[in-house]
């Protein structure tokens, strides 16, 4: 079987010594993690290895010897290295030697207890230790979901990645440490660290505690009984701003928890939430500064009343059109006039109400605009709520029209059954035949005819107002879609994939390096980064997303029957 040796590229220029690492016997591969230099005492090396093994739970051992000689190969050195094989008993004992600056190394193995006399092939795979240590392997989604996977069935590559990732303790000692063991690995020139990162780590604990305290205070106030009385609680549930604020509060709770993240997923989730909040607030403050400069918000408030007036006038024109002969259709004059006058009076009330509110609009808008500093998503939600409030009369008209139409349809269906001599059996939930009296039949047929001929008028009013309502719903839906996008986009992961693509690995790729006859096969193992689509899919933040409650067919059915539609359902809402 082919023997695979994973050699870190940082150790290529190390001085002679012995190789330590992990031997994975199922795959016949040796992962070299560091080189221990002469002079060393074998007992101390074994002690050090067992201690590292105890701390990291990875089985370390001495794998072989490494000789880097600038001159010609010395016989005594090679014998000495072979003798080392007897001190550190390891099957097979790997000997790698490099002469001068040659790229082609010679590799051989010593097998004492094996019956196989054939020389087995050796494959030398170079890997970048720092990148492999920092990267996180993402298995393809179908293997990740199968839960009955045993650990040894798992990817062979993940065993290698895990070995390097868990041996962080080994990489903590650099060559300037005073100790019996002198190692060479990727950090042997000195442990790298960033002052800013360390300072932030120190400062984060008290900051998190303060934040947790503040959040618990705010959520305590929110949950207090005062705000739970019926009109207020109904208002909070209808305004999407409150939902968005609650969602962001939850996010803050996630970030400010003092517990360290257990695994990669939690860490990425925390980082994504943090960056998303930061960008949101930054964009919100930008928007706010743009709005308040040159008193744009004053202009906005000044145009709000004329816009509301304009909408009301357009609605009045529409109703006048409906009261005449809309699109050439002939309406029932009496019903037409009644409905038209009723809706016109409603609009008149609405306009007077708006004019009553007009002196206060600017001040309210000014203070409400300040809350844009909480985030761009909050500002968008406020916009959606303002649209909902301004078009409240359209919603009212839709409800009136729908109820009237619905009543008419139910009446018609019930009287149609009477016309045919049938009845709806409430107990059995089915249609049964029934013998009516003559006067019942007479009145029923009369009412049926009346309702049938009044149907087109009501249907037209219902159609017009439903279309208007659907328009408003679509606009609000688009705004909520944008808010959802900002909420759920994992910005930190995308930036990480852009700048440090080796951290998110989909797999590895091999490149065959220059070969020479008689020398082992040389391969370079590089990290294959995850594609952007998989990054977004894996690290998407969960949202309280609103998605269509009904399928197209049930929506059409509801529209036809005149049932009120609430097209967006929020996650977590109870099904009615």
């Amino acid at each position, binding site marked *: 079987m082919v023997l695979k040796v994973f050699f870190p590229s940082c150790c290529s220029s190390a001085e002679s010594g012995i190789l330590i690492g992990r031997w994975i016997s199922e795959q016949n591969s040796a992962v070299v993690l560091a080189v221990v230099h002469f002079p060393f005492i074998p007992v101390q090396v074994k002690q050090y290895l067992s201690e590292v093994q105890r701390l990291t739970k990875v089985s370390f051992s001495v794998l072989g010897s490494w000789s880097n000689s600038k001159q010609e190969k010395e016989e005594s050195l090679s014998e000495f290295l072979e003798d080392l094989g007897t001190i550190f008993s390891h099957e097979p004992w790997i000997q790698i030697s490099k002469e001068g600056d040659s790229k082609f190394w010679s590799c051989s193995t010593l097998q004492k207890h094996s019956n196989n006399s054939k020389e087995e092939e050796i494959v030398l795979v170079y890997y970048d230790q720092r990148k492999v240590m920092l990267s996180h392997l993402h298995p393809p989604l179908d293997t990740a979901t199968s839960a009955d996977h045993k650990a040894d069935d798992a990817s062979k590559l993940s065993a290698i990645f895990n070995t390097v990732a868990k041996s962080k303790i080994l990489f903590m000692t650099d060559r300037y440490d005073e100790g019996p063991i002198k190692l060479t690995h990727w950090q042997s020139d000195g442990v790298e660290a960033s002052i800013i990162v360390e300072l932030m780590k120190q400062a984060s604990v008290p900051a998190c505690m303060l934040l947790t305290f503040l959040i618990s205070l705010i959520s305590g106030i929110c949950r207090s009984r005062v705000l739970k009385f019926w009109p207020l609680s109904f208002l909070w549930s209808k305004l999407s701003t409150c939902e968005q604020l609650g969602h962001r509060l939850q996010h803050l709770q996630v970030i400010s928890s003092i517990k360290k993240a257990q695994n990669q997923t939690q860490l990425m989730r925390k980082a994504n939430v943090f960056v998303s909040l930061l960008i949101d607030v930054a964009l919100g403050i930008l928007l706010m500064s743009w709005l308040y400069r040159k008193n744009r918000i004053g202009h906005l408030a000044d145009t709000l009343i004329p816009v509301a007036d304009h909408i009301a006038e357009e609605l009045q024109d529409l109703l006048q059109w409906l009261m005449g002969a809309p699109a050439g259709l002939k309406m029932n004059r009496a019903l037409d006039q009644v409905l038209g006058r009723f809706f016109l009076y409603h609009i008149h009330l609405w306009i007077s109400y708006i004019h009553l509110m007009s002196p206060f609009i600017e001040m309210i808008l000014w203070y409400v605009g300040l809350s844009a500093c909480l985030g761009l998503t909050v500002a968008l939600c406020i916009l959606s709520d303002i649209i909902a409030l301004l078009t409240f009369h359209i919603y009212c008209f839709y409800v009136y029209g729908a109820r009237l139409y619905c009543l008419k349809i139910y009446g018609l269906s019930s009287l149609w059954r009477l016309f045919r001599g049938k009845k709806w059996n409430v107990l059995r939930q089915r249609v049964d035949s029934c013998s009516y009296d003559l006067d019942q039949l007479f009145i029923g047929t009369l009412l049926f005819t009346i309702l049938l001929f009044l149907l087109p008028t009501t249907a037209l009013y219902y159609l017009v107002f439903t279309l208007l309502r659907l328009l408003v719903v679509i606009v609000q839906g688009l705004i909520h879609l944008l808010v959802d996008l900002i909420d759920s986009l994992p910005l930190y992961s995308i930036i990480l994939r852009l700048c440090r693509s080796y951290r998110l690995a989909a797999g590895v790729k091999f490149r*065959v390096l220059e070969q020479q006859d008689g020398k082992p*096969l040389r391969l370079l193992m590089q990290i294959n980064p995850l594609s952007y689509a998989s990054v977004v899919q894996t690290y998407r933040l969960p949202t309280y997303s609103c998605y269509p409650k009904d399928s197209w067919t049930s929506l059409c059915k509801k529209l036809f029957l005149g049932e009120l539609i609430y097209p967006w359902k929020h996650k977590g809402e109870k099904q009615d």
Partner: protein
Amino acid sequence: MEEREYRSASGAPIALRRRQYSASCRELVVRCPRLQLRSLSAATSAVWLAAYGLFVLCENSMVLSAAIFITLIGLIIYLHFVKIDHESLLVIGSLGIQVTSSYASGKESTTFIEMGHVKDVVINEAIHMQKVIYYLCILLQDPGDPQGVSEVVPLFQSSKPRLDCLIEVYKSCQEILEQRKTAPQPS
């Protein structure tokens, strides 16, 4: 290393290059038909003629600059995302199989499949448009069921070599895959 000329399923000339690095490592590269100058000039002239016709109609010179812009952007997108220059298969016995597609702009897209997941490499038939073509594919092992196949990964999808080329590639792959069956189990 040897290189031989073959034909693709649509009749265009392709070349297969085989390289053996060691007893258990082989690389097979299929070079796709190159971008033809005449098709490139035909597309560019068509776009520019249409733009000139629009310019004559509406007298707005922005149309012409927009056409140039569109041609350039379209060409860059085509070379970077669509046109594949060569596809290669690197079989390393005991490690795995690596499938690489290199685009005309130099971008490479690689997938590495570990040897433990590979069940077999076979030649399959498929109905493509109005023809029946042969294609080479890797069968992946189903972890739960040793006899089952969890996924089929088709190879050389944009060069579509004909059966004679595929047989050469198939023979090379099978020589290495057989080694893992005859190799003694590790202690």
